């Protein structure tokens, strides 16, 4: 029995290894994806294109503008001459923010009257706009404090009365708020899922499509032997991919790894089970590779978009949050990020481990029990 199983596995590996192009895609794909994600998938808001429309053009107004530059978030490279030009710049998407200072800014500050400053923000990218708005408020606040300090110093006061509350903000786990630290663990999870699902589904369906299933039927190979033989190479390949991705993430992208590596690798296996079950299931309900692909997409896309990879699940409507409970990736992402960034152990991860176990068991059971060495 083991000899038969061994031979099937050998045959599958030979098939995978023989197709060099395919092998290249399988191995390099995840690494490329990781690099793309690592460098690209950043929600960090910096280099905000900014225009300055300074009608006052005094020492004070230039100081105000300088504080925008110094913050490091704003790239000021447009100096429009009229409000119409400001509009044109925002319309064409050349700038996201415009700081407009009216005539008499410096004079009003000297007089002690509020000096109006208008900031236009392109809100079409709501996310950037909110974060940029936060930066701007901070900058304005800083400027106000500076001016007030000067004012109160003249009066001989030591405080500006504004320091009435101190707020110490601490950001845990990812103190610099680097989005790469958030993304890399996520991409490792997705790579695992995508690879194993597609490879497993294709390995089985190919046999049916090429008509070689018939030959297998007349051999003494048992159904389960065939199944195990078929899924071992995908598991091995996906696992290698995951380890590669892990190494690149930690060594190249310097994502902190706070937890236990052995725990992570063990839980990776746990996550392979539901993905595998899904892959086999897809091979059942599809007749051709084309169909299998489309069906795979039906599962992959929602998993990635709804699994908390980029978009936080807490913000989704209740009904969709309910759907996410059936997405294995959801739990695995929490586990990955927990081990990577928080360094937590089994104790805290348990609430995400048992759903994975149940989902994995159920999917594997459904798909395996339907797997037969049959033609149709």
């Amino acid at each position: 029995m083991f000899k038969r199983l061994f031979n099937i596995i050998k045959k599958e590996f030979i098939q995978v290894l023989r197709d060099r192009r395919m092998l290249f895609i399988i191995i390099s794909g995840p690494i490329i994806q990781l690099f793309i994600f690592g460098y690209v998938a950043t929600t960090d808001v910096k280099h905000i294109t900014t225009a300055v429309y300074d009608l006052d053009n005094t020492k004070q107004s230039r100081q105000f503008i300088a504080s925008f530059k110094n913050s490091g978030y704003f790239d000021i490279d447009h100096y429009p001459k009229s409000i119409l030009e400001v509009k044109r710049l925002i319309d064409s998407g050349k700038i996201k923010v415009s700081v407009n200072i009216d005539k008499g800014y410096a004079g009003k500050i000297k007089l002690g009257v509020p000096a109006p400053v208008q900031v236009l923000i392109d809100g079409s990218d709501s996310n950037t706009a909110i974060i940029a708005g936060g930066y701007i408020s901070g900058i304005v606040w800083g400027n106000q404090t500076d001016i007030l300090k000067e004012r109160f110093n003249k009066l001989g006061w030591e405080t500006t009365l504004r320091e009435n509350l101190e707020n110490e903000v601490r950001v845990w786990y990812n103190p610099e708020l680097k989005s790469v630290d958030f993304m890399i663990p996520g991409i490792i999870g997705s790579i695992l899922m995508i690879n194993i699902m597609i490879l497993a589904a294709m390995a089985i369906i190919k046999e049916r499509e090429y008509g070689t299933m018939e030959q297998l039927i007349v051999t003494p190979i048992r159904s389960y032997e065939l199944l195990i033989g078929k899924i071992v190479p995908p598991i091995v390949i996906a696992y290698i991919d995951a380890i590669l991705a892990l190494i690149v993430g930690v060594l190249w992208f310097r994502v902190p790894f706070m937890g236990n590596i052995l725990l992570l690798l063990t839980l990776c296996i746990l996550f392979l089970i539901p993905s595998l079950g899904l892959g086999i299931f897809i091979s059942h309900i599809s007749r051709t590779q084309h169909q299998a692909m489309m069906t795979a997409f039906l599962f992959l896309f929602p998993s990635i978009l709804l699994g908390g990879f980029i978009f936080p699940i807490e913000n989704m409507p209740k009904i969709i949050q309910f759907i996410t409970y059936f997405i294995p990736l959801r739990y695995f992402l929490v586990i990955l990020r927990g081990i990577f960034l928080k360094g937590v152990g089994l104790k805290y991860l348990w609430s995400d481990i048992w759903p994975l176990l149940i989902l994995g068991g159920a999917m594997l059971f459904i798909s395996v029990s339907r797997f037969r060495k049959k033609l149709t």
Partner: protein
Amino acid sequence: MNSRIFGIMRKEFIHIIRDPRTLIIVLAIPLIMLFLYGYALTLDVKNLSTVVYDQDKSSLSREFISKFSSCGYFRVIRYLESNSEIKEILDRNQAKLVINIPINFSKDIVSGKPPKVQTILDGVNSNTAAIALSYINAIVNDFREELLEGRLKVENIDPEIMQPIKYKPRIWYNETLRSINFLVPGIIVLILMVLSVLLTSMTIVGEREKGTMESLVVSPLKTYELAIGKLFPYVLIALMDIILVIAVGSFWFKVPVKGNVILLFFLSTLFLFCALGIGFFISIIARSGTEAFLIANILTMLPSVLLSGFVFPIKSMPPFVQFITHFIPAKYFLTIIRGIFLKGIGIKYLWPESVALLVFAFLIFGAGALRFKKTIE
């Protein structure tokens, strides 16, 4: 010639209709995706689970907390009793924000000594944390202003003097900053891209795999006739999808269409040709269906999500990657669709993107035509 193209078209149509699953997929999937993602994908931060460790328990500290709980961005789910709970609750993912109010909070405020409040934020999701941070700062500053007002009355100081700069932010185009207005156009682009590539990437390689390419080779069909005939049905389907998703986006999700719908439709068609061209090209160079799928995934779908500006601002990417984005048609189309939807701008501002799409469409079909031979290897 016409009848030959027509014959191929008919054959493709029959293929599509005979496989009802494909038909369902191409018509239902865009709608399901749009509905699902339109509702689910949001970057807005609201009801962020928050726990409070209020050591002061005074009316002032409660007032401070209520600033957080009443703004809608934060939801206080629990009150802690000890310092040691903080770490566990964050480690366990039960809360994202901890507000730690020191014991002499209200006494210090009254005596004019600034108390030190601590806010601990879970930074794992850097984006949520960054947004939350700006809300926290706004709330804290607001509270400071209120305290100040009281103080100024006591000291008898003109409140105007405390506000040297009157700062008015004004948001254009998406005044309420709904992330759905930003994301739905992106989802539409994504759906069109994924669907077109998915549809066409199997056309040629499918014939090859099934061995029916041979019968096409011996037929009097010219290469370009085969190409046109194969693609035309998918163009029709994709056009229907365009109308469908734009209608749902604007009528159901109420994403404002400030610009010209006709222009949008025309430029969508242009984008469609790019996407179909990519799928067609993949189908020509791939040797098996699996390969076609993987290439499509790696070369088109991922970049369309990542490099197009769908969620990740292109300006934040490294210069080299920014250069690559010039070759992503989805990037241009996204600028177009957001421009027309949200900004209401016309071809005057959008012509560079439109030209880029046109050039891309020509290049990809040209490349496909060069590589495509009606031969068997």
